[in-house]
């Protein structure tokens, strides 16, 4: 189970940012390490990839 320690909107630790990611934005930063992810957005979903923590998908993908 991943440990969520970082904001997916800006990558800062949750002690610095309580979560600035918007509902209609895919996660841009890894919730485990704060690293910026590569994100593919397609009409029906998204796939995000952290170099260290692997792939995260929206439910629909």
């Amino acid at each position, binding site marked *: 189970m991943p440990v969520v320690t970082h904001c997916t909107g800006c990558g800062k630790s949750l002690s610095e940012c309580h979560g600035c990611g918007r*509902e*209609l934005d*895919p996660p841009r930063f890894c919730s485990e390490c704060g690293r*910026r992810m590569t*994100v593919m957005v*397609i*009409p029906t979903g998204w796939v995000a990839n952290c170099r260290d923590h692997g792939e995260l998908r929206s439910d629909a993908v």
Partner: protein
Amino acid sequence: MGAVTTTPVAFRSGASSHASAHELSDSPPPLPQAALSAADRAVIAGAEKALLDERRLLSGHELTALAALPDGAVMNLAALAHQVRLAWCGPEVEVEGILSAKTGGCPEDCHFCSQSSRFDTPVKATPFLDRDEVLAAARETATLGASEFCIVLAVRGPDERTLQRILELVPLVREQTGLNVAVSAGILTDDQARRLAKGGVHRYNHNVETARSFFPSIVTTHTWDERADTCRLVKVHGMELCCGALLNMGETDDQRVELLTQLQELEPTEVPLNFLNPRPGTPLGDRKILGAWEAVRWIALFRLALPSVILRYAGGREVTLRDLQAIGMTAGINALIVGNYLTTLGRSADEDLQMLDDLRMPIGALSAAI
């Protein structure tokens, strides 16, 4: 009988699930309760006569007069725009899916764009998707009931390798899904436009975004005229032109009317109407979101200025219009992007298809009006 009095109710802007309270436009005053003046009604009647009886385009002066009507006239504008849409385009709604096939790393400095390499945004550059990824996205789009699929690339213009990839993908997508394929790949040379047309590209997108007079405030790495030149090349070589706008970057109402007259001159088949969704890290990242009622006004004005175009709901409509999205569909919109956008998410396709079903608007593929 005594006079009727009302107790003013404080206007509540509120927060929504799509935008935090600080991002919404400053609370506007309540809508006026008085009926329109005779002069205002005459302006609307003049536009109705021009568009529905004389079947001619409105002039810049006429559009300026319509744009100056008070907020209480927005529903009148919307009603007229809906009649114009039906008379000039019919009742069908075109549904399209778009795909960011090459994301980020763009060398241009369009101030609204999170994909520019010049700004420190959360969007990380990714290379051109492989063929299977593009085809999978196209198949998913077809299952949503779309008739159009647009392959979008964050580039100034296509280099030869990119052009070859596009030319390989277009017929594959068409053959495997039946979708009309549109492409958005920046500024084109004459030869590139010719090759894309010959390669089966149905429609080419290149937005002018804003008025020519305001463009230098938004982009410095290329000019509005360069964009307009690409638009003309698209038409010369027989592709349908998709040329749209992005509202709420700081332009004035006069500049929005200027844009409308410039779009009239370019004669696009399709006009995607985007509303600024302020992106973190971009120069426009701190702008307030456009008020929903103002958005409805300008949807109607776009239809009144461009009666025969496919007027498409594009980026930013969920965060801007929120619960008023259906009003836009009866204020001139006759097409929409379904599902997600290039780097941001849209609402579910099911919600949009339910909206169209509730409005009793049939879905169909549209083309240049005769």
